[in-house]
């Protein structure tokens, strides 16, 4: 598999480290429901067919975390974005303080 890194161009899979599901957001540690929120955040994953949003870290390249949209059946990657940009949009869209 090859990933189109927005910084480095198309690179082979062995330059990257998988960092998990990009569709979960770290919950507020002080919310009354924190324990169950964190349980879901750490352990519960959907294993659906089709497109998954995944975090890949370009360890042997630019060190950027990437959000990769990959079809788990065909392995076709339809989108790659710099994770920091995605995360900033995520945080901007969320209520203040929800991720810290």
């Amino acid at each position: 598999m090859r990933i189109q890194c927005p910084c480095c161009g198309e690179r082979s899979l062995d330059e990257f480290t998988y960092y998990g599901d990009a569709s979960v957001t770290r919950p507020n540690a002080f919310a009354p429901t924190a324990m169950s929120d964190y349980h879901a955040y750490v352990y519960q994953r959907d294993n659906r067919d089709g497109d998954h949003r995944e975090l890949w870290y370009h360890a042997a390249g630019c060190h950027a975390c990437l959000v990769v949209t990959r079809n788990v059946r065909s392995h076709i990657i339809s989108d790659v974005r710099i994770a920091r940009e995605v995360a900033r949009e995520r945080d901007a869209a969320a209520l203040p303080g929800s991720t810290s």
Partner: protein
Amino acid sequence: MRRQSNRLGEGGIIDRSKPVTFTFDGAPYQGYQGDTLASALLANGVTLVGRSFKYHRPRGVLSAGSEEPNALVELRSENYREANTKATMVELFDGLSASSQNRWPSLRLDFMSINSLLSPIFVAGFYYKTFMWPAALWEKLYEPAIRRAAGLGRAAQGEDPDHYEKATAHCDVLVVGGGAAGLNAALNAARSGARVILADENAQLGGRALDDGLPIDGAPPVQWIDSVREQLEREPNVVVMRRTTVFGVYDTGTYGALERVSDHLAQAKHGFPRQRLWRIIAKRTILATGATERPIVFGGNDRPGVMLASAFRTYLNRYGVAPGRRIVVFTNNDSGALTAAEAALAGLEVVAIVDSRRGLSAEISKAASTAGTRMISGGVVIDTVGKAKLSGVVIRTGEGEDVRLSCDCLVMSGGWNPNLQLTTHLGGKPTWNDAIAAFVPGTHPPGMSVAGAAGGSFGLKDALDEGAKAGSEAVASLGWKVAGPASPRADNQPYGIRPLWLVEASKSKALVDFQNDVTAADIALAAREGFQSVEHLKRYTTLGMATDQGRTSNVNALAIMAKATDRSIPETGMTVARPPYSPVAIGALAGHHRGKSFKAVRRPPSYAWAKANGGVFVETGLWLRPAYFPKSDERDWFETVCREVKTVRSAVGVCDVSTLGKVDVQGKDAGEFLDKIYMNGLKTLPIGKARYGGMLREDGIFMDDGTIARLGEHHYFVTTTTANAVKAFQHMEFCAQWLWPSLDVQLISATEQWAQYAVAGPKSRDLLRKIIDPEFDISDEAFPYLQVGKITVCGGIKGRLFRLSFSGERAYEIAVPARYGDALMRALMDAGQEFGVCPYGAEALAVMRIEKGHISGPELNGNTTPRDVGLGDMIAKKKDFIGRVLGERPGIIDPDRPSLIGFRPVDKNMRMRSGAHIVPLSAPATAANDQGYLTSVAYSPTVGDWIALGLLKRGPERIGEKVRAVDPVRNEEYVVEVVNPCFVDPEGEKLRG
């Protein structure tokens, strides 16, 4: 040496001016440059080349290509020995030595052929049914006996002396297969200027076009093939890779290929690998892998002398070899005509053409009359005659009459299977084409197109035209300008196949899978016993599971199963091909990554000094760290390590700690960031101070620890453990980029930028005073425990000083840029002479940390929490940090969890060993009574006794209690006392000075 009795007087593209000598089973033979081992053996009249896997039936050469199931030989000798090599793919070289396999005592006289008589026992699935009782005999008797009898070649016993390498290539268009379609595809693609790679598994390009000898542009095909090869090899944008098998298709246009660089040589040239594993990245791929001819399933079809018709033509046309002199052709399609005509042209006697189709084919009858041969229409071969060599065949004519004909070669054509394996590697399903009675590629992998016989177009003209079209379209789709497709002139041959899957009138064994000895009867048995799905059929009978991957057998088996279960072939299904298409040596997959080259070696800055001073090294991850520095009069490592520990505790020692991970953390929010990733507070750390820090996983488990030094308002310097350096840094990057993207923090790994030495012992400050430039005050008032500062050493070299202690002594870590590391080590050792300095290694370091009760890898083992290792008080109460929430789960904070404590043996002479489990004194040593285990054990020269750290249920509450340490692995058991885990200076007076 014998004459090459079956070599034709002329023809073939071998070099008759270059004779080559070789041996087979010790006997010398001669062939020519350009021969394969198979063609040379046939030229010498050697028809018996092996014994079959299960029944030890005599076997000859079936094919002329990589689909060969029978002619497997051992090549070379001793550690160069290579088993299960296809004689049809082995290029002959001078001095080649080959031997047959799976026979004893000799190929001609094989005692194991008695298995043939026992064949009722060895039916499909026999190992599930027979030899079952009594069960005790299986391991001792049955299995070893079966294994001895059933086998392929012998693997070499020693290390492979050859070299292998790996390489990556990029191209616009990859053409797989260099036959008519592939050559024309490459030529049409290359004219655009696009980068083209053409890979073919054979030494010579041309594929079946070369084998069949049909004219291209009105001339022998070799002329067109040579001219295309020359054109391609001239083009700077084209790479022609011969002897290269593309064996696998992977995601995103990635292809695996194996180049046999030196297999055709007696020994690899100096500096060259034996084989090279390629990763080819292609934007477009054209599959032009051709097709493989099917055998016909009839009684005795595996007798030496029975051969595929296509292989027969290959031996005639390519090698000038007649596999026999009296030929019978058995066919279910029009290609039989071509075969008969070629045989007649070569001056061989064509005894008969047996055409299973009823009604006269115009092609066949023309060929029969030209060759002056007997035509048996609607007939089948029901059996073969002979022992280890064919002497005749029994034919049942269309009228039901049995006729015996004498012959020494039977050539058969059951039709053709496209070589579509590469289209299925990513999950593509082949589809059935009734017109050609074969599976053809269904969905293709992204970017792949198929041309010629690989797609089911078996005619030469079609192959050339489809190749041209595929080549032009591939480059055009990438935006290259290209003229319309161009092809030379050629004709298609009639095919007219009418399937004949099984000659049901046969009484004797009719082989389907030659290599695994699976017969038509085995398939019928599998059908009767309910193993009707193709996947069950395969596993029950082992069909298609041999090294040839069932290339000559899968479709025949499927068709027989379809008939037996009254289903159509597509209903019966098709097994999915997985990489590799043909076997790949493990050595090639490993490449240079074996032995000492398996991983990179990292050497710390003092490596050269340590090496020169007798350091003994230990591998820690990739690092080579000095373990200890023996003196010439010391008897063993134990004495050395004790001396190093005593020197540190009484004088001063120096240890290279550069291998610790180091991360430079800067930015306005650096403190805030560190507060989130460490369990304890760091934002409040004053500038110029260092603090221990513990890093948790989000599930509350301890991940890593180290020290955090604050060098400036917005500047921290963090160390991690050696083992977790990479993981911890990546974790920090992940946190900064994904969890808290808006924090102003920048990270960089500085592990390799700094040489860092621990200088430990009561005289450490005295030593450093001589190294650090005088303007820096390192008195205890100015530089107390946990102080950090920038310094210069040895007259102006910038460095850093940290007052940290892992040993428990007054100690410092001094750091300089890595390029000064070697010089600083020498300077420290010189300056330390008067204080009795010694270097110490990882062993003494470990002994001293156990003496101090400090945790390390054995305690931070991925199962422990901060509370488990006695650091519960460090956990911050108010802030958020990774691991905060889940670290408070009931199971994580359960006080019954094993926690860190010390142990000493009650019998002072008893040596403890880590890994021993702890049970109460009076309870039996069962898992139910298991209360913990010893994690780290050392002999403490300071205490004068063995000491241990361990994890014990409610450990800290049990000081003074005696428990049993049980070590079932080493069969040891002894009583230990639970003690405080800090064995030396528990008040910490020494480290503060």
